[in-house]
C-alpha cells in the first residue's frame, strides 16, 4: 500500500539556492573524461621513428632546455621544436599547444611578482622553457601509444614497479572519474531545494569515492593479473633505428653543441 503523500502530485517550488560549484565541477569532470575517451590521433609519421629514440630525444630536449642559461639557445631550441611541430597534423598541433598553454600560463602567474620587481626578461625566458618542455612531452605522448612508451621506458631500464604504478594509475583515473561523475550527478539530481549542508554531501561523495577507489584499484589489478600480467614489462626487442631517428638524434646533438656555444646569459 502506497503512503498517501506518494499518491498525490507534489506542489513544490524550490527556494533560491546557489549550486554553481556542483555544476562547474560536473562540467569540468565531463570535459576531462571526454578528453580521456577521445581516440588518440594517429598519422603515418608516427611509425617512421622508433618510440625509444623519440622518448630519449624528448627527455634530452627537456634536459638541454632546463639547463640552458642563454636566451639565444632557448630561441634556437624553440625554432627546432616549431619545425617538428609544423610537421604534425593541425589537430595535434592544437592538442600540443593546449597541453603546454595552461602550464605556461600558471608559471607566468607564479612569476608575476618577480616580473614586476626585476623586469620581464627572466620570467619570459622561464615561461618559454616551460612551453618547450611541456610541449615536447605532450608531443611524445600524442605520437606514441602507451604500450610502445612503456616498452621504450623498460628498454631504458625504468623499474617495472614504477611502470606498474603508472600503468594502473592511467587506467584507474578514467574509471574513478566515471564513478566520481555519477556520484556528483546523483547529488545534483537530488539537490532539489535549499541544501544548508552542501559540504556534508560533498564530503559523503569524497568518502564513498575513497572506499570505492580502493575496491576499484584491487579489482583493476586482479583483472590485469587474470589476463597474465605478472608485474613485468618486457623490453620490445632490438632497436629498429631508421633515417628519421638519425635526423632526430642529429638535431639533438646539434642542440647539445649549441648549448656550449651559448653557455650563459650574454
Amino acid at each position: 500500500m502506497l503512503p498517501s503523500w506518494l499518491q498525490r502530485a507534489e506542489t513544490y517550488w524550490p527556494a533560491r539556492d546557489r549550486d554553481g560549484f556542483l555544476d562547474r565541477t560536473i562540467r569540468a569532470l565531463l570535459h576531462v573524461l571526454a578528453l580521456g575517451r577521445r581516440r588518440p590521433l594517429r598519422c603515418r609519421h608516427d611509425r617512421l621513428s622508433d618510440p625509444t629514440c623519440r622518448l630519449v630525444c624528448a627527455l634530452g630536449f627537456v634536459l638541454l632546455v632546463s639547463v640552458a642559461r642563454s636566451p639565444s639557445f632557448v630561441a634556437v631550441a624553440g625554432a627546432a621544436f616549431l619545425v617538428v611541430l609544423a610537421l604534425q597534423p593541425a589537430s595535434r598541433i592544437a592538442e600540443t599547444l593546449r597541453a603546454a598553454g595552461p602550464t605556461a600560463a600558471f608559471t607566468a602567474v607564479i612569476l608575476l611578482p618577480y616580473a614586476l620587481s626585476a623586469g620581464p626578461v627572466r620570467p619570459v625566458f622561464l615561461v618559454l622553457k616551460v612551453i618547450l618542455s611541456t610541449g615536447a612531452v605532450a608531443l611524445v605522448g600524442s605520437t606514441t601509444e602507451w604500450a610502445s612508451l612503456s616498452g621504450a621506458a623498460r628498454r631504458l631500464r625504468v623499474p617495472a614497479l614504477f611502470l606498474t604504478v603508472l600503468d594502473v594509475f592511467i587506467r584507474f583515473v578514467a574509471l574513478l572519474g566515471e564513478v566520481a561523475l555519477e556520484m556528483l550527478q546523483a547529488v545534483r539530481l537530488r539537490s532539489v531545494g535549499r541544501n544548508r549542508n552542501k559540504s556534508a554531501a560533498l564530503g559523503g561523495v569524497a568518502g564513498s569515492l575513497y572506499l570505492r577507489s580502493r575496491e576499484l584499484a584491487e579489482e583493476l589489478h586482479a583483472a590485469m593479473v587474470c589476463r597474465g600480467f605478472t608485474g613485468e614489462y618486457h623490453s620490445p626487442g632490438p632497436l629498429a633505428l631508421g633515417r628519421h631517428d638519425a635526423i632526430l638524434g642529429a638535431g639533438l646533438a646539434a642542440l647539445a653543441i649549441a648549448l656550449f656555444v651559448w653557455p650563459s646569459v650574454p
Partner: protein
Amino acid sequence: MIRLQDVCCTYGDGDVLSHLDLEIHTGAAVAFIGPNGCGKSTLMKLLAGVLFARVGCYHFDGEPITARRLEDQAFAKRFHQRVGLLFQASDAQLFCPSVGEEVAFGPRQMALSEEEVRRRTDDSLRLLGMGTLGDRVPYHLSGGEKRRVALASVLALNPDVLLLDEPMNGLDPRMKEFLRRLLLDLNGTGKTIICSTHDLRYVDGVFDTAVVLSEDHRIARIGPYGEVVADEAFLREMNVV
C-alpha cells in the same frame, strides 16, 4: 509531457543516440528495450537532464531541457524533483553516511517539516522492505539492498516521472515481483514510469508501450508493449531475446 525531436547524442567519438523522435504522455508506462550498448542508459540520463542532446531537442511539459535552461537553478531543482532517476549502478547513487540520511537527503531540502521528512523516510524504507536498516552504512549493504535504498531515496522526492535504468538488476526473484507490483501501483496513481530493461519476464503487465532501440542507436519500433514482446522474430532480430 515528454517530447524528443530528432535527438542525437554523442559519447566520445561516436553517436550513442541517433535521430530519436519520441512522445510520452503523462501517466504512461513505457519500457525501453534493446541490446547492450544501444543507448538505453544514455537516453535515461538525457531524460533526467544529466546529459544533453548534440542536435535535436527535448521538451518536458513544453519547456526545452537544455544545459542553458537548467542553469536557472529554481527551474532545474523543480525539474529534478519532478523527474527521478534510478541509476543502473546504485553504488554511485549513495553518498550519505547512513541509509536513513540517504533517503532523507532530498525531502530535507524541500522545506518540509522535520516530522514530514521523517515520515517520508520511514514510509519509503518500509515500502521497500528496508524499515530496519535506517542506521546501516549504505556502502556495506549488498547489491540488492543498495538498489532498494537508491529507489527509496528517489521515491522520497515523490517525482511525477520515474526513470528506472535496469531496475531488476541485482534483485532476487521475490524482490523483482514486489517491484513489478510497486511499479503498477505507482503508475496507478498517475505517475509516469519509464524503464529500461532486458529482463522481460519480470515486468509483465506493467507497461503499455514498448520502445525498441536498435544496435545502430535508433528507434526500431514503438508499439503496444504486449504486441511488441509477442513478436519474437522481431526481438530476435533486434538481439533482445
